[in-house]
């Protein structure tokens, strides 16, 4: 390692940045994906199931 240059050399910052970028983006991406699934999808599914249960009850009453 050369130390007698005018400025101190910087090593490994590139690798560190890539790893940091990938980790951070997954840290945002995975919760975002699960947020989509558990807020929108599951909620929608529950509403649909509830609707069909109510619908089946209504159909049963009419007959």
């Amino acid at each position, binding site marked *: 390692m050369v130390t007698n240059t005018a400025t101190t050399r910087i090593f490994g910052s590139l690798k560190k*940045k890539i790893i940091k970028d990938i980790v*951070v*983006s997954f840290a945002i991406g995975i919760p*975002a994906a699960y947020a*989509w699934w558990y807020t*929108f999808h599951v909620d929608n599914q529950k*509403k*649909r199931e509830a609707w069909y249960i109510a619908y089946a009850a209504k159909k049963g009453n009419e007959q």
Partner: protein
Amino acid sequence: MLIMNNYNNMFNDVPTPWGMYLQDSASPMAEGMLEVHDTVMFYLMMMLMLVGYLTYSMMKFNNKMSYKYLTHGSLLEFIWTLFPVMMLLLIAFPSFMLLYLTDDVIDPAMTIKCIGLQWYWSYEYSDFINDNGETISFDSYMMPEEMLEFGQLRLLDVDSRVVVPIDTHIRFIVTGGDVIHSFTVPALGFKVDATPGRLLQISTIITREGRFYGQCSEICGVAHSEMPMTIEAVSLPKFLDWLNEQ
């Protein structure tokens, strides 16, 4: 995302202005399609954030030259090849499963022939015969704008609807009379090309009453946008009443 939820409450059977999600499902097939859509969206969400953050990071943090000395990297390339492959496989499996499930025609209780013509649809109920010994068949034209009644939808309602019973296995046989059309009903998960000289079939079981709309989805001439299809799903007794009137 929660705002989008308000658009769907099991009665969205038509395209709505600024609608952000798919129409509510009225058949198991359409339900499967919503499921696959949401599954794909799960992976897309992850990738959106991944690519979005990387782009942001490259442009914003530290300096504009942050990846200047990154000219090659075997491990990186390996990762950015393997990751999309994995994502595509995860998307492909549910899609193919649904694709082959929709091909299934399980012992239909009735069959309806749909013939696409320039520019209307002709329907035939081949299982039922009227007093004259003819099968029930009729042409279905779009309601012209000036003849629309209150509550009818412009470019979607037709003069004679296809009436079908709910909770019954129905097979639709689709063909074209002149050029290629496409029989499409989003709420039921239909999209079948009506090709002249060819019969294509699709089967369904409609799970709830309602009117389901669709538009021809294969460009077929000047009035391509004026040959919608309306399917009216009713209970079995109501369907039999309708049948007697024919």
